């Protein structure tokens, strides 16, 4: 009972909601870069929220299903077709054994989530199936998907075919304002540097991956070169000696010693992972209080939009 990988595309990784509580072994979180799209993939399929799906970066995944089940593709607009017939994203689709599933390349954005009913059945490592290639942990032997891989999943014959109305889907744009909670080393950046950081436009560089996004723009100087190595949270914005910010993401190292100006709000850091190189980013400072309200709002509204049923 499985799906077979015909073509893995640029980078396809098995991901559940991520590995938690293992930083003391030096393990990072992994998990979906765009949590919102991952959330809707499982929610539309009526899966439990942490079910294992495939994170497709850029596109190009081709699968052959060997089971009768339901699938759903959410996230960046990558054309989906089943046996050559175009199908919409953000909608549960029926597939039968022998069907060929193709995911094309993203027109905007760069990550999408391919889920099956009840998720792929993958053995958890350290409490999670999330693939972190750098650590060689999770997924299938800790690596990205390759042609010929078998992805176990159960047969499912009765599932409602939900979809998310077009007006409720996120729009992936080329610019983004990232809200930043100022951090512990903020005081080492003088007022001019802080104003420069929060007043400038930064561009996503080519060096952006699941560990972190390097941005390019006006260099920010700090009055210290580094700190005694300390823990790094998701979204932390490091400023190495070259003054170009790095936003640290899911597969980041757990400790490091570059000074940090603050941390990107998790919702915005996740949104940023849909930006392709050349896109622009602004940073805006917010307080803890505002950050918490934003998370509450996201939980109550963004993630709870009503699902429609296809009949």
């Amino acid at each position: 009972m499985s799906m077979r990988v015909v073509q893995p595309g640029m980078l396809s990784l098995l991901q559940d909601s991520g590995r938690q509580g293992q930083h003391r072994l030096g393990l990072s979180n992994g998990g979906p870069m765009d949590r919102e799209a991952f959330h809707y993939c499982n929610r539309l399929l009526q899966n439990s929220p942490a079910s294992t799906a495939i994170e497709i970066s850029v596109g190009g995944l081709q699968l052959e299903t060997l089971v009768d089940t339901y699938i759903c593709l959410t996230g960046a607009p990558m054309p989906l077709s089943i046996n050559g017939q175009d199908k919409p994203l953000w909608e549960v689709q029926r597939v039968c054994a022998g069907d060929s599933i193709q995911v094309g390349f993203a027109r905007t954005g760069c990550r999408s989530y391919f889920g099956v009913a009840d998720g792929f059945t993958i053995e958890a490592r350290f409490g999670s199936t999330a693939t972190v290639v750098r650590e060689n942990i999770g997924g299938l032997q800790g690596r990205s998907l390759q042609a010929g891989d078998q992805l176990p999943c159960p047969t499912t014959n009765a599932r409602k075919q939900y979809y998310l109305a077009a007006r409720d889907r996120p729009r992936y744009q080329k610019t983004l304002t990232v809200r930043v909670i100022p951090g512990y080393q903020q005081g080492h950046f003088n007022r001019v540097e802080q104003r420069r950081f929060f007043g400038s436009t930064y561009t996503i560089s080519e060096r952006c991956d699941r560990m972190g996004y390097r941005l390019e723009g006006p260099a920010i100087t700090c009055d210290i070169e580094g700190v005694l190595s300390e823990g790094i949270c998701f979204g932390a914005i490091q400023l190495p000696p070259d003054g170009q910010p790095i936003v640290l993401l899911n597969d980041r190292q757990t400790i490091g010693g570059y000074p940090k100006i603050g941390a990107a709000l998790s919702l915005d850091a996740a949104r940023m992972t849909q930006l392709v190189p050349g896109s622009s980013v602004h940073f805006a400072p917010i307080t803890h209080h505002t950050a918490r309200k934003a998370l509450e709002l996201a939980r109550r509204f963004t993630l709870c939009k009503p699902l429609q049923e296809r009949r």
Partner: protein
Amino acid sequence: MVYFGDVMDTQTSARVQAATRAIEHVMGEDLVDLVPSYASVLILYNPLRTDHLSVARRIRDVVSNVSAPAALGHRTVVLPVYYAPEVGADLELLAERVDLPISGVVELHTSAEYRVYAIGFAPGFAYLGEVDERIAAPRLATPRALVPRGSVAIADRQTAVYPSVSPGGWNLIGRCPVPMFDPDVQPSMPVSVGDTVRFEPISRERFVTLGGDLA
């Protein structure tokens, strides 16, 4: 983030270790993860269960009561190491630079007791300190793309065993046959933060017998 100082020393590290346990206890289910390091503890909490002020209050209470206990049940772990230029590419150069015979470098490296200050960089990578200043060596100007698994290395006054093949800029002096990270066994690491580590020199034969890889 809670800071206990800004230097690498045993007292600070002992307070970090004691505070880590206390914070874990007081935070309970609100805690997502903790990252203890040399002189700080990063606390990751679930912001939808609690808030910054409540966390800060709880942490302030426990941290002010944390003292650095003289003997907080730590273990001493002995790691065997085969010291030789064939597995320690920088051993000869390092010995030359510090004007000691290779045996002198090995003796200074094995005679000290090291404390596990932090774990990070890669799964199972333990930062050990402090290396005798006579054999302290700066990081390589250009990091190696591939450091073999088990490599024992020095950077400034820190030493470590590379748990897996990875890039790295530390000076390689030998190799340890004991796996520093094995996801298939429990516990997956032979050491944890606060433990004491000693290195024991072994022969080439013993290294191979213990499962070491010379390649």
